[in-house]
């Protein structure tokens, strides 16, 4: 008869000795960790500490989902990566680092964007999921895929100085939709790029995520099922709020209406993938190339920037006026151009400005155009001296 000790090699017994000493872990617990598999969706701010600590802890198989390339602006918080990794695919760099931390871990790299087409192929291969993504559509996708697969999802999210951690999709427990049934309209909640984030924040919150994963595997302590942990880095405060399973939840409730993955971009009010989605949604556009042509010819239209003022300090196109999109409806009267005039609206990537075009159209501006791709496209295609952020 095999005993638990048979599954751990001598070097593993040495490596995990501090775990083995803990009564709540022991050889039996360490073997559970070794036999477990965890999928980390996102290898960024949250995924970095989570991956490192879960590998160090001896999780047997770790899956990583990320199709991104390491960017210089990642380095202040994504501690899986270093200066030499800038420009390289994240997963390649992550794999090297994790291999060094713990060569006993079996790593599976999924260098793809998680989507409704592949989530139900990837997620069910694992015992647990750690959601460390950075967009609302992906969070709803991960949630639904986990609930549909019966897999527990350790959720965490961050913004500026705050973090949230909870455990969704546990048997009898709530899911993400029980907490937030509907996403915010696009552009209302800034991304890390737009809002900024304290570098250490995902370090703390991602490690809390890893802690919950380990507790769930070991079956010890009180995991955050039915509780939302709020961390405030400025106050150094931890608070927990109750999250209840919603019996009317469309995906985990008593009478679920969602039994398949949906279009999450659409659910979050974003244009779905496709080159002409903005034309289809009726928002007239102008490309950066066309705008450049008009600029050179001396006939450029009025340019309205709908970003926040601090973004203009990072990168500017010298717009005629700046009114943040959140304030635009209220401040429409301040526009220094008349409804019949041509007006081009820009933001960082083109989605806030698309909304602004719709607002202006509703207010009678008949010649309002969205600068397709925003200042990012301007920097990439026309003027690389303009900063990208």
């Amino acid at each position, binding site marked *: 008869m095999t005993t638990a000790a048979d599954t751990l090699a001598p070097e593993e017994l040495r490596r995990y000795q501090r775990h083995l000493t803990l009564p709540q872990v022991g050889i039996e617990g360490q073997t559970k960790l070794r036999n477990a598999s965890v999928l980390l969706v996102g290898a960024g*701010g949250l995924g970095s500490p989570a991956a490192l600590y879960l590998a160090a802890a001896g999780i047997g198989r770790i899956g990583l989902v990320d199709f991104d390339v390491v960017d210089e602006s990642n380095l202040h918080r994504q501690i899986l990566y270093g200066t030499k990794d800038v420009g390289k695919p994240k997963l390649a760099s992550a794999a090297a680092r994790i291999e060094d931390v713990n060569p006993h871990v079996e790593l599976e790299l999924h260098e793809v964007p998680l989507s409704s087409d592949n989530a139900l192929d990837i997620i069910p291969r694992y015992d647990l999921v750690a959601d460390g993504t950075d967009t609302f559509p992906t969070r709803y996708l991960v949630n639904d895929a986990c609930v549909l697969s019966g897999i527990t999802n350790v959720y965490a999210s961050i913004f500026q100085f705050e973090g949230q951690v909870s455990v969704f999709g546990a048997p009898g427990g709530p899911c993400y939709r029980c907490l937030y049934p509907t996403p915010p309209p696009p552009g209302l909640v800034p991304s890390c790029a737009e809002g900024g*984030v304290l570098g250490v924040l*995902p370090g703390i919150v991602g490690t809390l995520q890893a802690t919950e994963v380990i507790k769930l595997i070991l079956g010890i302590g009180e995991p955050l099922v039915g509780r*939302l942990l709020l961390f405030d880095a400025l106050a150094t405060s931890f608070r927990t709020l109750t999250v209840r399973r919603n019996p009317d939840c469309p995906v985990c409730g008593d009478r679920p209406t969602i039994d398949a993955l949906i279009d999450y971009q659409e659910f979050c009010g974003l244009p779905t993938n496709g080159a002409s989605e903005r034309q289809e949604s009726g928002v007239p556009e102008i490309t950066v190339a066309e705008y450049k042509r008009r600029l050179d010819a001396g006939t450029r239209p009025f340019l309205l920037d709908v970003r926040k003022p601090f973004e203009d300090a990072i990168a500017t196109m010298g717009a005629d006026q700046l009114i943040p999109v959140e304030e635009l409806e209220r401040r429409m009267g301040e526009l220094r151009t008349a409804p019949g005039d041509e007006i081009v609206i820009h933001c960082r990537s083109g989605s806030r400005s698309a909304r602004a075009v719709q607002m202006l159209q509703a207010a009678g501006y008949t010649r309002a155009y969205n600068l397709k791709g925003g200042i990012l496209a301007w920097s990439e295609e026309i003027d690389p001296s303009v900063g990208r952020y």
Partner: protein
Amino acid sequence: MPTETREQATVFIPTPLRSFTENRPSVTAAGSTAAEVLNDLVSRYPSLKPHLYDEQERLRSFVNVYVNDDDIRYLQNGDTRVSAGDSLSIVPSIAGG
């Protein structure tokens, strides 16, 4: 006009909204229900209002409000009673990672 004695509750302000409450992480507001406390809050800090309420004056769906530790959606929504010393937490949806 009779003086109403309204309960004072502590309202915890999430970081993204603190620029509208003079950078205070928590403020006091008066009311005997969650709705009253929030109304008092936005009357004291009007620039908070568009972040909490939509154009139809409904609480934005991605902003959760808790009285003490419980989501008001699972209690009596805006009519959830607030007693002296209770706290209200505003917890908007965030997605950074």
